[in-house]
């Protein structure tokens, strides 16, 4: 809703819009609601409308076309007024469908409540029974029941209700099962309430929404199916008529008077569609994932809409030159500045550590380089990413594809979720090779096995046939590394590659990466939150906070004498062997939300040295000697630090 309409409706402005408003905001479900109200309203007032009786036959007027005078929709083969019959039939169909829904809801919910509440054997036996019922094709079971009870509208109603009981029983049981173990139920039990009273007073009210939702999703079906049984002549019997039996009778004169069957069919269609539209709307409103836009499909490359483009710098000889990179997430009218102007250079053969807490923007920075940030909601809003004199933010999708996995290779954090679960690891590496080298599958597979040995996987030829879930965490990470090495990438980007692993495996993987980087001579951008890891592998570090680099310099220097208070804290977080108390699990306070960055220093709220000047204006990244820079107006010096402690 735009700001203008919000302002026009003062009620809507405060707090969250109401359920109904959300529902109406969805145009289709609003249409469904209107249609349903219209049909139901017409059906309700039918007895008071000036209509001819639906059952009065008049052979002289048989099969009149629609729009003839006196008969809006014409007449059927017995000369009965179709419009009148349609409205009366709709009444019957709605009544039967609703009743069937209610019957199914009552019995199904009762079964679900009891099974879920009792648990154990009772649950097991009841649910086996329900499973048995579901082993029948839906309509077939209804037919069998009608066969036993005999044709008739009421029997059709029962039959349809019975076949829908499993849906209710299953849904309600699931919810009840989790509720039955909650404290308030235990409390009620302790207070001496009987089981039935607990079920009715404690559990049922909590389950009610699920019952209502299940009803709204099944009522359309039930109307359709009872109409179907009537159509087959197994439901409503003459002279009683519902929409289905009207359609069934109309079918006999299909060829010379099609309107007699088209009209009631259209009504069923409209009725069921309006219910489905409304049901979809309700579901959308209740499903919070749709609201956040998280269900949107990410595009192949991040959208680039740059508001600021820095000058193309002179050739620096760096493998990668990032200038003032800005990446944002646009969610529900809010702009999250995940990366707010990051610049760094990655030199050939060097390892640069990008350090920061989660949410500092370090991963997003890495993903932005080759457009791997999902759009929506991501968007690159500024900067340049220069590689071999070309700005990658201007590259076409095809060019990006060539670089991805080619000159640039990624190693991601959690290899269980980043490797495809349904392809063997050998196949996934083979695919990575073949994306960039003109090899046959067989040749590439051979190369994949070699890569697996290179990353020290025992029995590589055999292991290549394994699937990710069959391997240990450390093995999986070796697989990802092998995949990253597939095409002798110039630049490796490792995003927390050791975080998901335990300490010993972490050390092995680090050693392996360092050795391989050395051997292959590639540049490595290593992203982590752990200064301990950084100190082992990187030559230089860049510390990120709230989407910006706050300090950079050679690893040893930064580690030995950090200049930014945040860096100091991060280093303090590193556990030291034999001194478990030193591990401060987190720095007190939280980083600022990147959609509401404060003026001045983003770290001000958590900084022990904060003063008034820190909260004014933009704080620049100041040079602090060769290769070192810090974004702080009062950088730490050895002396001041002593004083602070």
């Amino acid at each position, binding site marked *: 809703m735009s700001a203008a309409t919000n302002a026009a409706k003062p009620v809507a402005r405060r707090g969250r819009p109401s359920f109904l408003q959300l529902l109406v905001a969805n145009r289709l479900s609003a249409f469904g609601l209107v249609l349903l109200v219209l049909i139901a309203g017409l059906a309700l007032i039918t007895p008071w409308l000036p209509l001819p009786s639906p059952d009065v036959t008049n052979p002289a007027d048989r099969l009149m076309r629609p729009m003839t005078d006196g008969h809006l929709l014409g007449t059927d083969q017995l000369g009965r007024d179709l419009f009148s019959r349609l409205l009366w039939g709709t009444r019957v169909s709605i009544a039967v469908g609703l009743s069937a829904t209610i019957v199914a809801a009552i019995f199904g919910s009762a079964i679900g409540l009891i099974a879920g509440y009792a648990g154990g054997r009772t649950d097991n036996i009841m649910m*086996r029974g329900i499973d*048995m*019922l579901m*082993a*029948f*094709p*839906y*309509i*077939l*079971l209804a*037919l069998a*029941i009608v*066969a*036993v009870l005999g*044709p008739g509208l009421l029997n059709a109603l029962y039959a349809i209700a019975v076949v829908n009981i499993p849906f209710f029983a299953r849904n309600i049981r699931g919810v009840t099962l989790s509720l039955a173990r909650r404290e308030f139920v235990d409390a009620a039990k302790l207070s001496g309430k009987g089981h039935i009273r607990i079920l009715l007073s404690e559990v049922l009210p909590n389950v009610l929404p699920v019952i209502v939702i299940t009803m709204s999703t099944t009522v359309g079906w039930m109307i*359709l199916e009872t109409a*179907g049984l009537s*159509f*087959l*002549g*197994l439901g409503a019997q003459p002279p009683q008529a519902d929409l*289905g039996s009207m*359609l069934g009778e109309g*079918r006999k004169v*299909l*060829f010379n008077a099609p309107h007699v*069957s*088209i009209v009631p069919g*259209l009504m069923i269609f409209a009725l*069921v*569609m309006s219910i*489905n*539209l409304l049901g*979809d709307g309700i579901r959308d409103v209740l499903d919070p994932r749709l609201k956040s836009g998280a269900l*949107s*499909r*990410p595009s*192949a490359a991040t959208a680039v809409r740059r508001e600021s483009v820095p000058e193309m710098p002179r050739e620096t000889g760096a493998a990668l030159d990032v200038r003032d990179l800005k990446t944002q997430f646009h969610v529900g009218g809010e702009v999250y500045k995940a990366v707010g102007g990051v610049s760094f250079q990655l030199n050939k053969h060097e390892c640069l550590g990008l350090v920061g807490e989660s949410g500092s923007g370090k991963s997003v920075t890495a*993903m932005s380089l080759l457009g*791997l940030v999902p759009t929506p909601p991501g968007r690159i809003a500024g900067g340049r990413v220069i590689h071999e004199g070309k700005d990658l933010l201007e590259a076409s999708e095809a060019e990006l*594809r060539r670089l*991805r*996995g080619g000159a640039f290779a*990624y190693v*991601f954090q*959690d290899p269980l*979720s*980043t*490797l*495809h*679960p*349904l*392809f*063997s690891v050998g196949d996934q590496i083979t695919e*990575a090779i073949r*994306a*960039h080298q003109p090899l046959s599958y067989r040749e590439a597979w051979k190369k994949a096995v070699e890569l697996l040995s290179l990353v020290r996987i025992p029995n590589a030829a055999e292991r290549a046939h394994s*699937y990710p*879930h069959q391997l240990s965490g450390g093995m999986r990470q070796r697989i990802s590394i092998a*995949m990253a090495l597939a095409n002798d990438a110039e630049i490796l980007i490792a995003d927390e590659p050791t975080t998901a692993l335990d300490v010993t495996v972490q050390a092995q993987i680090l050693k392996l990466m360092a050795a391989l980087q050395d051997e292959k001579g590639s540049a490595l951008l290593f992203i982590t939150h752990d200064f301990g890891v950084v100190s082992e592998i990187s030559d230089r570090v860049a510390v990120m906070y709230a989407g910006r680099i706050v300090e950079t310099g050679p690893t040893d220097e930064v580690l030995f004498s950090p200049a930014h208070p945040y860096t100091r804290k991060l280093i303090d977080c590193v556990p030291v062997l034999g001194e478990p108390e030193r591990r401060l699990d987190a720095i007190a306070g939280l980083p600022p939300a990147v959609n509401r960055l404060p003026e001045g220093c983003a770290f001000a709220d958590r900084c022990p040295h904060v003063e008034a000047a820190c909260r004014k204006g933009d704080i620049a990244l100041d040079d602090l000697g060769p290769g070192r820079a810090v974004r702080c107006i009062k950088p730490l010096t050895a002396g001041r630090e002593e004083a602070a402690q």
Partner: protein
Amino acid sequence: MLVYFLKRLAMVVPVLFGLTVIVFLIMAMIPGDAATAILGAYATPENVARINQQLGLDRSLPEQYFIWLGNLLQGDLGRSYSLNRPVLDEVLERFNATLVLAGAALLLCTVFGLLAGIVSAVRQFGWTDRIVTFFVLIGISMPSFWLGLILILVFAVNLRWLPPSGMFAIYGGGGPLDLLAHLILPAVTLAVVATGVIARLTRAAMLEVLRQDYIRTARAKGLTERRVIYRHAFKAALVSVIPVIGIQAGFVLGGAVYIETVFQWPGIGRMLVQAISTRDLLLVQGGVLVVAASYVLFNLLADVAQHLLDPRLKS
């Protein structure tokens, strides 16, 4: 894989057993005297006695069940009194026709449902997506028996492209082409709802999968978007859609009852409707049993297919 298949097959046995119990119980629950229900209120006492004995109704319920089951296992489903022939013969003959129809419909809904779902997920919020979503909504809201009538009106009566009913032409028919011509309209009609359901779920599954980390990995490898979508995303989505296709088999087999009636297809659904109106309960029983058993087998197939695709399920 073979071990799994055999295990899964063994699990089918109790389900089939349960089916026979339910079918038996439903038939045993006929209110009033079964013999009068079958023969009508004016049956002679001798006939009633004969039927009672024929049905074994003079014994206890479990006894009756095991006798009935024993007969069933020997392929004896009793005799249809309205057709005066063994139920099994009639049922199997009719089932063939239903299998052709339901098989064609399942093929259609699987192919088009998957395609529509993928296209609509890939072009999310675009025009294609909107059109697909619109048709899906119409498809799942439409009474299939009504759609059948309209298709007959349009394609058989007005355009005269296709025959309106039956499985073969009465004169000079019988070839596969003749069958195909007769099959198109009913199969399409039967497939519409299931196509909608499958398309909807495929779209949802694709959107879910496309946000997974391993899709980012696939892109980071430099794969073409086509490969990312049709190999990486589709395979993962398919794993969650296959059980739904299995369930749709049940709706298709059930929906055949309407479609066979509309198109006068000589299948088991139409037989059931006729048997119910003539109260030929043994025929109903046999028909229900065979269709239900075939549904169980369809689900077994879906299960096996899922296992073939997803190595995680093997362990």
